């Protein structure tokens, strides 16, 4: 099953490479990985989406912990958490579709970030599931290009 893992790492060059290389060397599935600084500039947070049966996931967590540059590894999957992904998508635009695109964008609480004669760029934020649905729904209009950030997530509440 799908797992969402949050990893605090030393903010040093090479850390992302160490984590990614460990996944490929051990044949673990890596669906998405995102990384950014935290409130402490020496620490970055990685959010990793992976898939596997329990035994594999337990190895993934242990192997992550074993890397010297990882500080804390948390499997958020079964804990209260907030998970978001950003989608940027450029669509073909014509007089006849303009209205529908705007409406659909509203349904997904999307934002128009750029508009030209023949193209429109929309931003959607939401869970990866919502992003998948949005892409499916917009597809008939003709997707010119799209970019997804991969999931980022944190614990909900005080823990």
């Amino acid at each position, binding site marked *: 099953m799908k797992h969402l893992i949050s990893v605090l790492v030393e903010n040093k060059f090479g850390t992302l490479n160490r984590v990614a290389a460990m996944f490929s060397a051990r044949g673990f599935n890596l669906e998405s990985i995102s990384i950014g600084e935290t409130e402490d500039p020496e620490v970055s947070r990685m959010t990793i989406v992976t898939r596997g049966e329990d035994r594999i996931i*337990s190895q993934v967590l242990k192997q992550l912990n*074993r890397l*010297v*540059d990882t500080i804390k590894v948390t499997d958020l999957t079964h804990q209260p958490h907030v998970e978001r992904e950003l989608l940027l998508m450029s669509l073909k635009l014509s007089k006849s579709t303009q209205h529908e695109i705007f409406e659909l964008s509203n349904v997904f609480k999307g934002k128009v970030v750029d508009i030209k004669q023949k193209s429109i760029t929309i931003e959607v934020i939401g869970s990866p599931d919502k992003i998948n649905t949005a892409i499916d729904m917009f597809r008939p209009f003709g997707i010119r290009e799209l970019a997804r950030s991969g999931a980022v997530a944190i614990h909900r509440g005080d823990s």
Partner: protein
Amino acid sequence: MHQPGQKLNGSEIFFECLRREHVDYIFGYPGGSLLKVYETLHDVEDIKHILVRHEQGATHMAEGYARATGRPGVVLVTSGPGATNTVTGIANAYMDSTPMVVFTGQVPSTLIGNDAFQEADIVGITRPITKHNFLVKDVRDLASTIRKAFYLATTGRPGPVLVDMPKDVLAAECVFEWPESVDIRGFKPTFKCHANQVSKAAKMISKAKRPLLYVGGGVVTAGASEALLKLAAEQQIPVTMTLQGLGAFPGDHPLSMGMLGMHGTFWANQAVSNCDLLIAVGARFDDRVTGKIDTFATQALKIHNDIDPTNVDKNVKVDLPVVGDSKDFVESLLNELPKTKEDRSAWLAEIEAWRRQCPLDYTVEKDSLKTEFVIDEISRQTKGHAVIVTDVGQHQMWTSQYYKFTEPRSIVTSGGLGTMGFGLPATIGAAFGVTDRPVITICGDGGLMMNIQELVTAVYHKLPIKIFLMNNSYLGMVRQWQELFHKEKYSFTDLEASNPDFVKVAEAFGCRATSADNPEAARKAISDALAYNDGPMLVDFRVVRKDMVFPMVPAGGSISDMLLARLNPKTMV
């Protein structure tokens, strides 16, 4: 010795740090990026630099030194080709959890990334084969990085650590400061075993009717041998060992069952298949040990003690994991467990019956020589009081079967990676660290050629090592698989037409050498070599060419199902 607080350049700091880490030997080779270091080294007297003839040799020497002494091995090589030549040795140390610190020179930091002359991204290359590695970008970080490197290499599950040092960093100056302590927030190994887990283990042991200890290199690393001997004796539990675990328990003890796994003893593998409790200590359920996983120790509850949590439940699902240091584990068990009241004599008798059913044996003929005999004879003449270093192949497996290892750190062998060419340099490294016992390599004619250049190093330093070459003029282990599983297609394994005259080769290097082709001559050659201490000595044992190592579990087969003899006796000529 320079004092902290003084202004020093990077090269001077480097040696100050090594002093504080009590380094006595460096195995190294100079080059452009290291000129400053070698300039400083010129006046260093307390740390001995051993000039190798190939950087791979340096890494294996460092590993031999580390395994024989328990202290970390140190390597120093230049950037680019010097660094890439260490890759095999680093991978070997990683697989066998050997403490080692490899220092590489690097092009000046301003040129990194420009495809500069002799630039290689050695930090990138060695990331998956080091426990950790560092690129030092500022001379002010050099001392603390070296401190961390030694700490990481030797703490918890040991392993190789690489420190890449750009040329400008080695020349730049700063005030030397030695950090008294190390704290790495992402690295906190668990030493102390959880008391609850130990109690549970103790209960399982006291209830077991047919328990078996399966011990690996972790017992040697942790220094748990003495406690293990006590535990086994008090609880009357037989002990089987992995290749790296040999010597962790005395091989001549009645409870010792020798090695298990692919070329393990028949009785050890039968015991694994029939035990009701398997207690794994400092071992990692490697595929060469388990054979086919679903048929491995199916009747047993399994306890697994290891300092590295990633080893637990990796290959085999266990009933009770106990993460922590193996010495702590065994000693805690000793405290918990009263001397056993269980009568385990029936179980021990069953094992004895398996031993009698398929003992390890071989025939001796007057005018032909078997590797098994030679190794048996080395074992008899040294009485187990030696450091035995092997290369990789048939001779290695026969060594594990016929040499009676009685002390920890008496075997040095490439287990996890199986690196041919390991033997000779590792022997040299071990001989720098161990001077109170003979240091012997048992190697093959294929593997010896892979690092033969290091004979120079042994001769120059007059190291009294014994090079016992089991010369079958074959890549014997591969030939064995070709015969058993590949339709007897002996592709590129016959070396008879191409092997050199090893006695002449040795002599050209200035090494004393002789040969033997029958048991009587072999016996004498061994005792002569053991008596000769003015330098290295090579004995070219002209052994039977097509002998095979048995018993054997075919790869992926079940360990309860061993091949006991060759399938087609006609192929033995």
